[in-house]
């Protein structure tokens, strides 16, 4: 034991004004939903946080109509510079209320407060600032003069980065002149509803942003509504395929950002201590609930033992516990359902003969938790080397030569992201050119920036979010 025990340092939750129930945000107002409400819980304690309205087909229709009206009468005709002003205002409000958003995100999602405080909320604000600047410069996105918005964008987002995914979707859509109907994930709707308050506070014209909460049926209604012009989805590959089928044959424009099974490649000339940090950040950041998580560690055989020993030592120093504690590194798994899926895949990994390792230590005995887990002796044939776990589970494979590293890295149905660790610049450039992944990080991992396009190859989806390419998805040539 260390004599240096960190005393609890909890962020106060009093800044958050939780309502006992929330309605749908349609046409600038909170209105009841017609579906049977669902509850959202704090995954770290299983405490019920609030009751959430569920949007039916009729509710979604009302939202799309409001969005269409706003597009035709207000947002579409508005001077681009004025649209930019609204976005700047929203960005500033996100910053002003950053602590409130961070605490609420942590309560609803289970992620550590340091992550929501230092990553999610600042990046969400950054996306609004970035796109606010684009609003009156659309001539320069590369689609010729005066590109036009699609109209009404239907957007469905996941539970892993609730506010950040909202920002990635809403900010470019509004900057380009579209209006929005957004469905947050059923387990994490609260920050989207707080965002709705921000829209009111910013005096955003009614109907420009509509937020319809609910589960899969509500999402399907958004995607399939005939008056939606543009569909954007981030989530599982399975649901992505359903959406692609539903949209096929319509005039809707579609972007999909789906799963991943990223290779994080560590060469023998890597800066080992920093590579270990990158491996940890790659797979244990946000409890591994990251579509671009570095879930396949490809390590050169000659440094395998050294890297694994350092990695295990480092994992032992991760701090687990109350997500609101400012010293927590690993928070709660978002839902019982996700925990069950992680357990199932870990069980399969063991049955397949891979060798599991977990650090010593106790998990909280209430809520949904899973220890950081490392599988060694993983073969490319194992399911834990192929299927997305979406949890804190790392599969370690080895390679002998750069060619083998590339072959194994690309041997995946996914292609969202990858990492390369080497002190040799020429090797980094050469390997990066051969990897079929949308994002390749060199000597770092899981870094995000609104200027940088993000998206995948193969079953990781199509289209890009962020940067000029991401903005183009919300525009067409005039």
């Amino acid at each position: 034991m260390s004599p240096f025990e960190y005393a609890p340092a909890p962020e106060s939750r009093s800044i958050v004004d939780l309502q006992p129930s929330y309605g749908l945000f349609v046409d600038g107002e909170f209105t009841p939903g017609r579906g049977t409400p669902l509850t959202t819980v704090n995954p770290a304690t299983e405490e019920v946080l609030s009751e959430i309205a569920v949007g039916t087909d009729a509710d979604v229709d009302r939202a799309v109509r409001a969005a269409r009206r706003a597009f035709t009468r207000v947002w579409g005709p508005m001077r681009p510079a004025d649209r930019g002003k609204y976005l700047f205002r929203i960005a500033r409000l996100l910053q002003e209320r950053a602590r409130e958003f961070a605490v609420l995100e942590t309560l609803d999602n289970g992620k550590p407060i340091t992550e929501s405080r230092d990553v999610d909320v600042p990046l969400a604000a950054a996306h609004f600032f970035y796109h606010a600047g684009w609003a009156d410069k659309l001539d320069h996105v590369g689609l010729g003069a005066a590109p036009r918005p699609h109209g009404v964008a239907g957007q469905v987002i996941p539970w892993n980065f609730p506010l950040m995914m909202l920002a990635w979707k809403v900010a470019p859509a509004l900057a380009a002149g579209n209006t929005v109907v957004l469905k947050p994930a059923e387990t994490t709707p609260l920050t989207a509803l707080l965002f709705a308050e921000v829209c009111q506070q910013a005096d955003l014209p009614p109907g420009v942003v509509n937020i319809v909460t609910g589960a899969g049926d509500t999402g399907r209604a958004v995607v399939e509504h005939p008056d939606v012009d543009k569909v954007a989805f981030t989530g599982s590959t399975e649901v992505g395929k359903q959406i692609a089928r539903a949209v096929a044959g319509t005039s809707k424009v579609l972007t999909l950002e789906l799963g991943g099974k990223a290779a994080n490649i560590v060469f023998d000339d890597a800066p080992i201590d920093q590579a270990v940090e990158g491996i940890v950040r790659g797979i244990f950041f946000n409890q591994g609930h990251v579509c671009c998580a570095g879930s396949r560690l490809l390590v050169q055989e000659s440094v395998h033992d050294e890297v694994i020993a350092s990695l295990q030592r480092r994992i032992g120093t991760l701090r687990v516990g109350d997500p609101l504690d400012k010293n927590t590194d690993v928070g709660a798994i978002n839902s019982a359902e996700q925990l069950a899926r992680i357990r199932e895949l870990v069980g399969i990994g063991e049955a397949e003969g891979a060798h599991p390792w977990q650090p010593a230590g106790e998990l909280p005995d209430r809520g949904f938790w899973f220890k950081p887990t490392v599988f060694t002796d993983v073969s490319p044939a194992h399911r834990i080397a192929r299927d997305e776990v979406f949890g804190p589970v790392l599969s370690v494979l080895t390679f002998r030569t750069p060619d083998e590293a590339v072959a194994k890295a690309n041997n995946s149905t996914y292609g969202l992201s990858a990492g390369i660790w080497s002190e040799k610049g020429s090797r980094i450039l050469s390997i990066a050119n051969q990897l079929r992944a949308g994002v390749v990080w060199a000597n770092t991992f899981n870094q995000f920036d609104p200027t940088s396009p993000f998206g995948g190859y193969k079953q990781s989806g199509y289209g890009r979010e962020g940067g000029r390419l991401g903005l183009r998805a919300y525009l067409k040539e005039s």
Partner: protein
Amino acid sequence: MLSVVSGMMTGVTPTGSTALDPAAPGAVAAPGAPRTLDAYADVTRSDAAFRAFLHGLPGVDQVGAEARAAQLGTRSIKTTAKAWAIDTAISMVDLTTLEGADTPGKVRALAAKARRPDATDPGCPPVAAVCVYGDLAGVATEALAGSGIHTAAVATAFPSGRASRAVKLADVRDAVANGADEIDMVIDRGAFLAGRYLDVFEEVVAVKEACGSAHLKVILETGELRTYDAVRRASWLAMLAGGDFIKTSTGKVSPAATLPVCLVMLEAVRDFRAATGVQIGVKPAGGIKTTKDAVKHLVMINEVVGPDWLSPDWFRFGASSLLNDLLLQRQKLRTGHYSGPDHVSVD
């Protein structure tokens, strides 16, 4: 089978957070490696062999190391943890005066403060050592007699190290003869940067011999080495040559101690112990002025090398103004309100 606990409706809401495995940082990184210094006897057999060894150490990615140090700096240390950290930091201070204007009177005043840093509170721990130039080591030793506080003396043509080896060794012997039981030497940065690693190594070996039973701290002067790769190589050089501590800086060159430099040096002593079984101490010096800075260093020790280093035997702060800030923060915790600079003694 894995034992995974979760989902049960028993138990209590978690308060605070705990490290999954507090013993983890002290674990041996490379299982099966020969844990003896003999395994490295060969690497110093020639200039070429030594260069190949030092350049074969894993590189340090600057961005990654600085990000990790910054991340550790965000730990929130409050209440009981803060009280423990402040007392521990006080006990690790090498209270230092290294001015041309130093006099026996100044050194005696510093020694009195070292014995009892806070005149209003006898519960305040003493510092680890008083650090002076070699000619005043005798004054310090006399003033510290019976206190258990060490006398550290800088030597080897401190701070530049630009003198012949004979002069440097004479400097060391003189300080030891004056009663210093800790010697803070500087490496020959000129030779190091010119790639004459074996020269630097042999000089440290010779100084260690001249120290006799005195503990040797080897100052790398990281502000002149500039890169983290060089810091890692110089750390290994100093440890292989027999240094008991590796120390960042003289305090006469800017930048002096920084968190990322300390991180790289802590990683070096961690890896060295894992490889040889020999534990080496670390002393950041210069530029650490506030309690907050000191606590960040203690967090870094705790999470990078583990609690084995959380003692004045293995970690020191080379500082002068730091002590007063620690005392002010200590008074604040004890009384609940801030006092002012007049409530602690001037040095």
